[in-house]
């Protein structure tokens, strides 16, 4: 039975984030005043923070997962730039452990969190420590095929050392079409990689510039709005049973065969997609 391996220090999990850093990411996210790249970095930094807190225990941070964050864009000559997006001490590292993530944020920002007392209605300002690992970037085009190829290489290396682990989960977040060819063969090659516990999972999230109604986890291609949605659907993995059950338990009305895809996602949808796609693995719940 695939996708059952408990995540542990011996059988680490692997999460790979592929972030679109093309120029179009400077546009505001649908339904928000902030740029897509800013919202995306906030979501990724929050995810890394939560995972670090979750992994922390009596003896520091449990080293039970590896994380890679890649950004992809092109330079002014149209050449693809595929590079790790982590900043600070971890800059240039393709894959790092959660322990390294927790110990080496680029900086820790002091932000004010506003919490309202439900009984009195009074609002409290609570200073909050917010570590930052990824900074926003938007430049050039969308070399999606190059990104998927690099991801394939990276995970091939990782899987060779973690044959028994829960298979790596790749979360690809973009806002447009691939500009270096058809990404589907690359996505298929990536999802053909496997550990003893199953194939690599590829989840795709499309960020919207307009407040159009979005959708998540479609179970069939009928009714998809355009070719971009069709491509992303075909690239996305079918949700394994633990993920499907987790989504059902969270109240999402999914059908059998639902794929790990979100289209026209806003910030709320993006965070929900990240949680659904990454927190259903055994041992992370």
């Amino acid at each position: 039975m695939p996708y059952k391996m408990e995540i542990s220090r011996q059988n680490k999990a692997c999460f790979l984030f592929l972030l679109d850093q093309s120029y179009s990411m400077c546009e505001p996210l649908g339904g928000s005043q902030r740029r897509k790249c800013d919202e995306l970095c906030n979501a990724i930094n929050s995810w890394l923070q939560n995972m670090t807190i979750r992994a922390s225990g009596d003896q520091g941070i449990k080293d039970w997962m590896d994380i890679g964050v890649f950004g992809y864009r092109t330079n002014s000559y149209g050449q693809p730039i595929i590079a790790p997006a982590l900043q600070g001490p971890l800059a240039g590292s393709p894959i790092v452990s959660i322990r390294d993530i927790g110990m080496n944020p680029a900086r820790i920002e002091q932000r004010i969190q506003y919490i309202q007392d439900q009984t009195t209605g009074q609002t409290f300002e609570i200073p909050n420590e917010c570590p930052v690992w990824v900074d926003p970037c938007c430049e050039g085009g969308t070399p999606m095929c190059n990104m998927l190829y690099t991801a394939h290489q990276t995970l091939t290396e990782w899987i060779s050392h973690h044959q028994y682990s829960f298979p790596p989960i790749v979360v690809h977040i973009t806002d447009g079409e691939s500009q270096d060819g058809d990404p589907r063969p690359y996505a298929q090659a990536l999802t053909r990689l496997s550990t003893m516990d199953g194939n690599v999972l590829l989840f795709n999230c499309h960020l919207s510039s307009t407040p159009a109604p979005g959708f998540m986890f479609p179970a069939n291609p009928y009714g998809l709005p355009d070719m971009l949605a069709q491509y992303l659907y075909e690239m996305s993995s079918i949700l394994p049973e633990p993920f499907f059950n987790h989504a059902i338990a969270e109240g999402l009305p999914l059908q059998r065969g639902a794929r790990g895809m979100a289209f026209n996602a806003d910030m709320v949808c993006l965070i929900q997609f990240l949680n659904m796609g990454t927190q259903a693995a055994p041992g992370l719940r």
Partner: protein
Amino acid sequence: MFVFKGFSHPKDPQTGVNEDAWRADDLQNVVVVSDGASSSLFSSSWANILCQSVIESVPDPMDHFNFPKWLERVRQKWINGIDLNNLSWYQKPKMASGAFATLVWATIDQSAEIPDDLDDDVPLDSAFFRIYGYALGDACLMHFHSGRLIRSIPVVRSVDFDSTPPLVGSVNLGVDLTASFVPIDFVVPEGDWIILATDAMSQWILSQCENGSIPDWREFWNQTPEQYDELVERIRLEQQIRVDDSTVLLCCIGSDVFLDREFNVETAAPEIRQEDNRFSVTPEYKPEPSSPVTSVGKTVFLDIPEESPIASVPPRPIPPLPQPEPAPEPSSAKTGFHQTTEIPPLPPDELGINSEFVIPNPKPKAVDNPSVRPSQSAPRRPAPSPASKPAASRPATPKRINPSQERRIEPPKSNEEEYKVAQPQPRSEQKMSTYMAELERRKVAEIEQEEQRKKEEESKFGYQFQKGMSEGIQDMKEGISELLSGPVGEQAKEAVKKGKEKVTKFFGRLFKKGKEDE
């Protein structure tokens, strides 16, 4: 009373961090297992503190007054062991919610009760033990008898293990845990196995039972800690068990385990020595505090008399004597009366009273006894009637109440002591209600007769004349006193005074003249 042996294998043997904890104490007769939640902070210390606290003072989660206090003390122990000033940024957010753990404990108590669902293969002279406690979360207590799983508490099937079980938190988040505690209470014969295990091991044991391959607990007992580690690693690789801290605590009820040659006694109890009127079995292996593998329990005491002729082999425990039957309910619970001493029966005619009054619908006197609640009282007996009474229970010559005799026993109002002496006593408690009702009736009748007599007296002429005269004399006295107190009264007093002087002088002269004449 019981022997125990614990095995624990950490989730990651390389780091040795084990968030499971177990304790067993044969003096308190308590066994406990706890599983600290991996996602929470300092959950290992929380699980250990919980186990130790249960051993030191077994809580009662249904005690709404004392259980919160107990829990607060345990929480305080946990927080006192943390250096709050040196927490990292990733630890601070978790401190607000604290640590979490599942918990299951049981007290093993020698019991005289024989369970109703006793198997045929259990000898009637077996000793029986009561197993009672509570379970919270998915750490389970399982009961095995004759190689069969009898019960598993609180999770029954291997598919029922949830990723979000109820947990005991080290910080008071305002969650009422009372409803989450599952009670444990059953009786087992000696020789049965009680297995406590954390979730991963519980799920594996239950799945093994469902597949028909129930673990042989004797073989399990004879494992070394290293063999247990190998077993867990192997079934992890085969994906039979979740990769999690895996703890199991074996408890064999009774002392038969040491008589059975199949057991590896050297592992379980290599040394038997006498100590404090008991034989203690000290295992060879002593777990180190920092060791990732926790193993055989500390000391096993067997209740053996000091003068036992068998020094090396403990005898079978003697079946407990049957307890006396519960004392019958006090008669007050049956009759509705508070009766502190037994009332001796009296002859029916000693005070001129037949104990079998013929009174329709007697009303028992209300009892001012808070200890006797209406719900505890048995249904009151119907009023005895001549028709319902068997003839044999009556006196041979039943007497009717003689009015003169009745009058004789009526208490004089002015003499309470005499009343007490003269009051009749019932023959038995069964007559108590009849007796009290008769007394009540007599009092009422006496009052009515007195009132009637007064009315008759008042209606006579002489009474009216005397009453009018006395009232007239009283009015005259009051009028005269009013006159004397006023100015007229002063003149009258002066006049009377002068009159008295004149009369005195007149009589003085008269008296003097009379003497002179003589």
